[in-house]
């Protein structure tokens, strides 16, 4: 309790007793720290937060928080998170997972949450690899990447997660990395506060299967904050321009924040319900509609 009598949450309040089984050094350790800090800054009690993930190393993350968590099915974090948000709109809903979870098997879901402007924050821990299944190519792996499933180098161009969500019209798009922990926590906080679908791509190194250039030192060498470039996050086209450098440059911060967020799907449903319920009979008489006189 603070001196003013209001409850104040500390990052530790969001840390569960479960010990992460990630490889020591994994970038996901920094992401969970960033989430603890962002949640503490927002200050909602853990039981008012639902955290859904898919399957992958990164998808273990809800279990390491004290929020309600669901380490669900590969690629299905978003539809489940959407169901939770619609069933209980008062909850703060987070979804998280890996680049494989989000952009391979789950790639088809993103567009629909964006077009509905579901009030959900989606955090992708992008390590350009399938970590959990021991180092296969992922949709964000660079062309030429040698892995156990691409012995002679990948033949495919990577998906650009930033352009992907910007093109579908996401209202909040940002990127973070453990090279800037303060920035990461601030970005996650801002994403959660955005009233609508918010996407944060986090370059989170896989120390076991990742390449040298994708480790902290390599990331530091190519990182640059968008603020230092004078980028205006209200400018969607400028954001798309900058997002094209995904893979060569690591731009950190908010690419795009819609200055006039449209209503969320939840708001529209509430409005529709209010409209239709005006002439509806009282609940206790609903059954009468089905009973023939």
């Amino acid at each position, binding site marked *: 309790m*603070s001196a003013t009598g209001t409850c104040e949450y500390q990052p*530790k309040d969001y840390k569960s007793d479960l010990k992460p*089984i990630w490889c020591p050094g*994994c970038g996901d350790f920094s992401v969970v720290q960033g989430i603890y800090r962002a949640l503490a800054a927002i200050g909602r009690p853990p039981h008012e937060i639902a955290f859904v993930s898919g399957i992958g190393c990164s998808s273990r993350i809800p279990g390491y928080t004290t929020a309600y968590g669901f380490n669900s099915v590969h690629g299905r974090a978003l539809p489940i998170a959407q169901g939770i948000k619609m069933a209980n709109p008062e909850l703060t809903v987070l979804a998280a997972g890996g680049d494989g979870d989000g952009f391979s098997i789950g790639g088809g879901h993103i567009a629909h949450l964006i077009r509905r402007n579901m009030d959900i924050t989606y955090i992708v821990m992008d390590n350009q690899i399938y970590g959990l299944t021991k180092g296969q190519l992922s949709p964000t792996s660079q062309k030429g990447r040698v892995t156990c499933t691409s012995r002679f180098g990948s033949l495919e161009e990577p998906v650009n997660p930033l352009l992907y969500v910007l093109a579908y019209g996401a209202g909040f798009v940002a990127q973070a990395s453990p090279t800037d*922990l303060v920035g990461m926590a601030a970005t996650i906080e801002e994403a959660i506060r955005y009233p609508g679908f918010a996407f944060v791509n986090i370059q989170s190194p896989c120390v076991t299967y990742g390449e040298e250039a994708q*480790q*902290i030192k390599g990331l530091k060498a190519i990182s640059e904050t968008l603020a230092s470039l004078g980028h205006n996050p209200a400018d969607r086209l400028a954001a798309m321009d900058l997002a094209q450098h995904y893979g060569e440059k690591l731009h950190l911060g908010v690419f795009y924040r819609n200055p006039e967020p449209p209503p969320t799907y939840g708001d529209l449903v509430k409005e529709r319900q209010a409209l239709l319920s005006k002439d509806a009979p009282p609940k206790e008489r609903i059954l009468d509609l089905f009973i023939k006189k």
Partner: protein
Amino acid sequence: MATRGIDFANLSLKDALDLAILIEDEAQERYEDFAAQMDQHRTPEAAKFFRYMVENEAKHGRELTARRLQLFGDAPRSVTPAMIFDVEAPDFDAARAFMTPRKAMEAALASEVKAHAFFVAALPALKDVQVRALFEELREEELEHQHLVQIELAKLPPESGLSEEDFVDEPAPQ
């Protein structure tokens, strides 16, 4: 290592002490996490050293807390743990499965060097004389901590020549 939202120029002695306690807490928690990671990855020697560091940080934290209580009682705290990022805590990526005790000690030494650099860098911004004196004291203590880790390092037998690369860590299947 970084901070968020701290106004060093106007830091009061109470805030400075609270900050120093938070810095010790954060380091203690990180060493506890590292020790747990080493347990999980069957690296008992490194775990043992990280637990030694937990004790060191806890001891220093208790001393600072006693001082804070003596000077300011239980007056509310206005700095928060969300304002500091790995000031004395070793970087989250400083741990590796199967790290040798030497590597564990080198990671701890690097954090003591980092903490020392933090107090050195913060000093010019401080205006309050008592706060300056506290930060100077903390800066010197970080040098002492470095010395303690160096003593532990000197006790180690030579390395076996094996590195982490000689081991493969297996993430759990799902």
